[in-house]
């Protein structure tokens, strides 16, 4: 079916077209009022938890480093508010389990200006120094995975990176924060791209944008033209056909270059590094000023909120504060999701804070969830919709039946379970309403635990 998808002009094979629902795309980024108290978890990223540098009672100013990296795969954290450290201890996280966090109570009269940053001369820096500077900003992937950016940008010895792919797809329905960033912060984005190109040694940068955001493409194109020739190489902005899950780096590289990343490998195998537009725009803003990451753009949307929009939110803001400001009617809200509706996680507690990897807060009501509400789960009728939609070319129907029989080892050995990146396409299309992705998550977790137990 390669030919069919090629003739249709599709970016990558299979995938789905969920309703876009990007109602907040025209709303400019606005700053959220500072909350009276923020909770900064020490574990906001993939890797090791950071180590707290402050103690209860310490006074901190906004932008001051309050936690340091404990490992290579770890990042420092900075105070999102000027105030006093109220507690360092366990606080509820969005996933459920309580996690170590620093709680800061804001001084009501503080100006909340970021005074801690020291402007730095980036031109004079070597690649290693630049990576160190990126690490000092505490930057992680703001697209959702929250992988430490400095680790992604440091190219291992022997490997060569020639291309920086900038991910501006934002394929999840509802989310518009990256769209607004591309429109409003294209200068910062280009600056960030240039730093990233210097840090990785890439000679070209390609910004992949889905064609439902043609205005962002035009804005970036204009910014590239204004920039003129740059010593780092060249920057292109490219429209790709809208399709979910284009935001996955494998799918984006397929769309742009027609190349498959071999299974189990990173884009580095093709000499590429993929980074999100939000991450690079933040880098472009923070690096020259020598500041740390203390706030990010978050889309608040869904039929459960009165004032949806794109807000600049201090890291650590409790979700409840955010929803109060956005006007979430209590009666209507059924589900609060961090991230997009396809891969985002329903929160267990509204006291949980916004972390560096949260791109959106969706408050869904019965209106959006109606189909899931009245759904009856039927046995698999083998309609093949899931096979036709799986971007990874798996057989979710068979995997689901094996999961129901708890044959997890067969799922891994014969049906490539670990290739699944949980995009949710199969579950979205399943007419029998079988929770396939959830079954796969459970299967993966059980397999991981079994392997750990076997290793012991």
């Amino acid at each position: 079916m390669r030919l069919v998808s090629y003739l249709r002009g599709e970016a990558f094979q299979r995938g789905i077209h969920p309703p876009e629902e990007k109602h907040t795309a025209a709303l400019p980024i606005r700053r959220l009022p500072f909350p009276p108290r923020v909770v900064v978890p020490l574990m906001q990223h993939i890797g090791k938890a950071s180590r707290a540098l402050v103690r209860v009672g310490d006074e901190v100013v906004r932008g001051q480093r309050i936690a340091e990296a404990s490992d290579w795969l770890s990042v420092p954290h900075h105070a999102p508010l000027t105030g006093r450290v109220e507690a360092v201890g366990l606080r509820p996280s969005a996933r459920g389990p309580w996690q170590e966090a620093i709680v800061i109570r804001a001084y009501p009269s503080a100006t909340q200006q970021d005074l801690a940053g020291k402007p730095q001369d980036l031109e004079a820096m070597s690649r290693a120094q630049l990576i160190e500077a990126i690490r000092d900003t505490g930057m992680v992937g703001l697209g959702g995975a929250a992988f430490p950016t400095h680790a992604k940008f440091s190219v291992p010895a022997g490997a060569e990176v020639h291309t920086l792919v900038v991910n501006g797809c934002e394929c999840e329905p509802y989310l518009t924060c990256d769209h607004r960033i591309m429109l409003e912060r294209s200068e910062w984005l280009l600056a960030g791209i240039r730093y990233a190109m210097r840090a990785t040694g890439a000679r070209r940068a390609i910004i992949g944008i889905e064609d439902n955001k043609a205005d962002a493409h035009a804005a970036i194109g204009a910014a590239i033209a204004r920039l003129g020739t740059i010593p780092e190489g060249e920057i292109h902005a490219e429209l790709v056909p809208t399709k979910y899950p284009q935001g996955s780096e494998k799918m984006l590289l397929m769309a742009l270059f027609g190349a498959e990343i071999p299974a189990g490998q990173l884009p580095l195998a093709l000499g590429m590094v993929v980074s999100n537009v939000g991450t690079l725009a933040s880098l472009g803003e923070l690096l020259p000023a020598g500041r740390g990451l203390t706030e990010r753009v978050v889309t608040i949307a869904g039929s459960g909120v009165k004032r949806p929009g794109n807000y600049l939110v201090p890291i650590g803001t409790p979700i409840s504060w955010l929803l109060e400001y956005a006007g979430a009617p209590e009666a209507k809200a059924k589900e609060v999701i961090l991230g997009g509706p396809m891969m985002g996680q329903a929160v267990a507690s509204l006291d949980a804070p916004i972390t560096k990897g949260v791109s959106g807060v969706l408050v869904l009501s019965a209106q959006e969830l109606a189909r899931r509400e009245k759904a009856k789960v039927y046995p698999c009728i083998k309609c093949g919709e899931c096979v036709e939609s799986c971007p990874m070319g798996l057989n979710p129907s068979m995997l689901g039946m094996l999961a129901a029989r708890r044959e997890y080892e067969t799922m891994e050995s014969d049906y490539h379970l670990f290739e699944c990146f949980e995009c949710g396409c199969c579950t979205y299309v399943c007419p029998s309403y079988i929770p396939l992705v959830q079954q796969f998550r459970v299967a993966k977790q059980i397999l991981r635990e079994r392997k750990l137990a076997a290793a012991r």
Partner: protein
Amino acid sequence: MTIEIRPAPHLHAPRDVPLIMRHVVWSLLPVCAFFVYQYGLSALASLLVVTASCVATERLFARTGTQASDIGDFSAVITGLLLALSLPPAFPLWMGAVAGFVAIAFGKAMTGGLGRNVFNPALVGRAFAQAAFPQAIATYSPSFLPGRFAEFVPSTLTWPLMQPPELAAWLKVNRFDALASATPLALWKFEGVITDAEALLTSLSGHMAVGPSPLLILICGAYLAARRFLDWRIPTAILGAAGLTAWLLYALSPERFPNPFFMLFSGGLILGAVYMATDMVTSPVTPRGMWLYGALIGLLTVVIRYYGGLPEGVMYAILIGNAASPLIEKITQPVPFGKGPFARLGKTRMGASYPLHPTYISREDAGAEAPKKRIFIHKPKQEDRRSAEKPHE
């Protein structure tokens, strides 16, 4: 504020199982209507009784807890309609009811209901009828009889557990010869007469004893395929394979074998290919598997028709295909992203926006050439050759 926690994805496509089944039922209604128009009251009674029998059996087994699915998902209606369409229109009603019961009870409920059956339930019912009532199932009544909306064909109203009366006497009263009540396939098999194409396609002319109109089934199937309620690959593969096999044999000895067109449009091949073989539960889910499954059915149909004792082979071909489908699925698993030949060879798809390596499009390097399509990947690149040539200059 009470909030719920559910696993992602939180949205869902509009399609669910009853919706799919309802669409299949709707698309069958024109076919049924034409069937009734052809054969009148008897066909109507047969459709109603067989469907009612299937639905009642489904309800019975849902109540006893033998199976999970219930009549709300319309799958029993599909089974009933398809079974009735595949039986002769004047099939005795009591036999139709028994076939309907067998279809659901042995074809579906026995293995646990919707989604768990190995064989297409309608075909299980028909296979049972074929074995139990060989006389009745071979007796077709002619279409477009003058009084078809006023009276039943006598065989329809046979008393339960009784054999139907001979149709020949009744036909003689209506001034038809016995030959009129033979299907085109039986005519070919036993008399060597080949019905012409137009009559087969529309079945409007004369008083041919044929099943539901192939052309109408194709149109309804095309609607379903366009809405993606059935997979287009299976009917395409079946008709392609059957047509190809029939054409090959016809090319070898035109006097022994009928033309491929006759093969495709006579009997139940179109109904089987469009509605029965495409039954989602009993066909493979993998795209390549669907091609293989369809090709197997198409080939078997022609082989059974030509070399078997019976004139019709579609039913057994599909049942064999159903039985083989788990096996077919096993050997036709899709190749995951990043594990196929594309990934291993580092090849790129045609029409990609950018080449993999930036050197080719560098604006600074004005002399850069567009890369030639490289068929032999181990051949040295152009730059290598250029640099190799330099020392000679």
